[in-house]
């Protein structure tokens, strides 16, 4: 066992650090500092730089255009990205449907979709949750009926509604769990479909969340016709893909590198803010009550980090991400949420002003220092993390059943 990076790893770290420093789009950093919402082009700008470098498919095998990096290299890349405040690439194509397609897809599906996911040409969104199927995902009701059309080819006709679909307003494609056999047990009648968002019959409606963001949507399907060759894996075996994908989603969800940076930012705020309790002005970070919470958070993050490293070590020895990744999801999201709590506490009175963001032609400077604008909205926004990707209650059920055997 060795905690130190090898000379090769250190050289790799330097390369990554230099590349990000030289190539990260300046306007993205400026927008993030001001708490501005990112446009579709913003999201894609860093993706395209990384894709050109061959670094978009971080966890992908080399044969599909991935980096083929070791888990240590992936760890280093995540650390360096967070250190430079570089955005994380959206997971829907790269970390979700991409791995499903290269694991379960046909050669034609791989050839058609994978290069476009890597390049950022296709924007993907995830059609899983439904109004009646949240934690109980397998109860989903969006149905896909198979039929033969006049052209002699086979299609599915899709009807139903998905919800909480992140950034569907920008999406070119949606991967969906749909019910293809209404008569069998819930998990056994589901198929995994890839649907072109331009297909007639699809309607996207925004859902505005607590901070005023438009990030999630309802996606409605009314007689949407999908070629059968857009189904991944066998008909009625989509749950296999779903379980595989959820396990993948959970490992990324720990967000250790981003949380490390998040704690650094809280410390920066707390070094800037003053606290004059008792009459003597000190930086907030010198307040023993606040400092203790930051210290506990750092310690909990270290515990999570080393738990994740142990999981990664297991993965590199051929064990896929298993139910243990539920632990990473629970602890990772709890830490992410606590960071937002501390940031909101740190800004004091200036947590209250609501900054609508910069609209078209609106360049009035927001109230207070830059770091205050998103403190409250971000706190509200991050409540989603203990709900999405399988709520933390569901994750505990998974651990109880699959790990503890209860």
């Amino acid at each position: 066992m060795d905690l130190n990076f090898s000379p090769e790893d250190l050289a790799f770290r330097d390369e990554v650090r230099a590349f990000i420093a030289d190539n990260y789009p300046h306007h993205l950093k400026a927008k993030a500092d001001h708490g501005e919402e990112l446009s579709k082009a913003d999201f894609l700008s860093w993706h395209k730089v990384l894709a050109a470098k061959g670094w978009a498919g971080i966890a992908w095998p080399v044969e599909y255009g991935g980096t083929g990096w070791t888990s240590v290299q992936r760890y280093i890349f995540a650390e360096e990205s967070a250190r430079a405040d570089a955005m994380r690439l959206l997971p829907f194509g790269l970390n979700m449907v991409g791995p499903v397609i290269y694991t379960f897809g046909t050669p034609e599906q791989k050839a058609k979709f994978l290069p476009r996911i890597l390049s950022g040409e296709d924007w993907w969104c995830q059609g899983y949750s439904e109004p009646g199927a949240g934690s109980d995902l397998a109860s989903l009701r969006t149905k896909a009926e198979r039929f033969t059309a006049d052209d002699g080819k086979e299609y599915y006709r899709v009807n139903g509604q998905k919800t909480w679909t992140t950034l569907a307003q920008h999406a070119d494609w949606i991967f969906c769990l749909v019910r293809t056999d209404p008569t069998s047990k819930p998990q056994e009648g589901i198929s995994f479909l890839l649907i072109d968002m331009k297909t007639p019959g699809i309607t996207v409606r925004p859902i505005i969340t607590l901070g005023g963001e438009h990030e999630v949507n309802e996606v409605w399907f009314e007689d949407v016709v999908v070629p059968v060759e857009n189904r991944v894996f066998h008909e009625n075996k989509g749950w296999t893909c779903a379980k595989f994908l959820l396990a993948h989603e959970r490992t990324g969800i720990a967000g250790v590198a981003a949380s490390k940076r998040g704690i650094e930012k809280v410390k920066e705020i707390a070094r800037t803010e003053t606290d004059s309790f008792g009459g003597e002005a000190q930086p907030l970070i010198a307040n023993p009550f606040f400092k203790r919470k930051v210290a506990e958070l750092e310690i909990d993050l270290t515990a999570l980090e080393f738990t994740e490293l142990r999981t990664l070590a297991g993965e590199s020895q051929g064990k896929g991400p298993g139910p243990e990744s539920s632990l990473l999801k629970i602890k990772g999201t709890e830490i992410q949420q606590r960071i937002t709590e501390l940031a909101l506490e740190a800004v004091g009175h200036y947590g209250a002003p609501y900054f609508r963001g910069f609209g078209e032609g609106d360049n009035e400077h927001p109230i207070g220092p830059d770091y205050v604008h998103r403190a409250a909205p971000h706190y509200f926004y991050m409540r989603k993390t203990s709900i999405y990707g399988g709520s933390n209650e569901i994750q505990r059920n998974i651990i109880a059943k699959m790990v503890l055997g209860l």
Partner: protein
Amino acid sequence: MDFNFTEEQTLLRESVQRYLADTYDFDSRQKTVNGDAGWNPAVWKAFAEELGILGAPFGEADGGLGGGAIENMIVMEEIGRALVIEPYLSTVVIGGGFLKAAGGAIAEAVIPEIIAGNAIIAFAYAEPQGRYNLADLRTAIRADGDGFVLNGHKAVVRDAPFATHFLVTARSSGGQRDRDGVSVVLLPATTPGITRRDYPTVDGGRASEVYFENVRFGTDAFIGNNGSALALIEQVVDEATAAVCAEAAGVVRKLHEGTLDYSRQRKQFGRPIGEFQVLQHRMVDMFMEVEQTVSMTLMATLRLGEADRARHVSAAKNKIARSLRFVGQNAVQIHGGIGISNELAIGHYFKRATMIEGQFGDADYHLRRYESLMG
């Protein structure tokens, strides 16, 4: 010992409750929140004329109902339940608190205007550097001829955009954080030299950064004595803190009720999610926080007149700040995705709960204050 409300107090609660249930539904509230004015003067007029509650804590001699802190508690709890944004706290609790304590000509002039619904008061006490220390003041008063001049910047002044008067804390003498030398003045909002930058708050209210540039006023503007008003400010802020504790009691009660209702309706895995023991226990924990919020609010309110008022108020606010967070976060969690949608009331209760946590000092501040006072 008697924890019973009087008949008048029960009637007060019922009439406020009925009025808000009839007219202040969530959709109407959202219309006001998203409107240009940011408050509803018609509601205020009804508070004054139909309900008469703007006189709740004032003496009958002033035209009030002859109540006090308990009446404020009752009204504030109902305000919390209905997520009322109109400025009862700043005008009646805080404005009324200062004027009642100060007495004199200014009280005689302004209290009837509050009761009639004509005067709206905003409390300009926070400063960008001051955090929760009420004496940390850069805003300064200096004598000039036979009058005074005020200069400074007040942060996040709630209800300022539609206020007719500002209550401003400022330093008349001494160093920036000295306990001596602090004053409070009441100024008409139209006084020359006052400018504002208005904005919405995350919990549906309105506030402003308020700037004072060579604002001139006379001796009659002082509430209490020039240079020795900190004790009065602390007293009124403690009364206001007890009042937001009462508001919190209404807010967490609604968060809990809404969550219980939802858990009975929402089905997953073939049954209402309220049947899952893990969620039952969570909702029991929320219930216990709600009950303790009510208890601590009552404790603090009943002890506002005692010598160790500050310690009791800090005990209540610390406990309630933690309850607000626990109940708010779990209400959202049990609702799942729709808990963070802007379309349902539950998320707006959560936002208000989160802002009350920090109002007049967060859990840490009040724990530290309690610690320093517990001996």
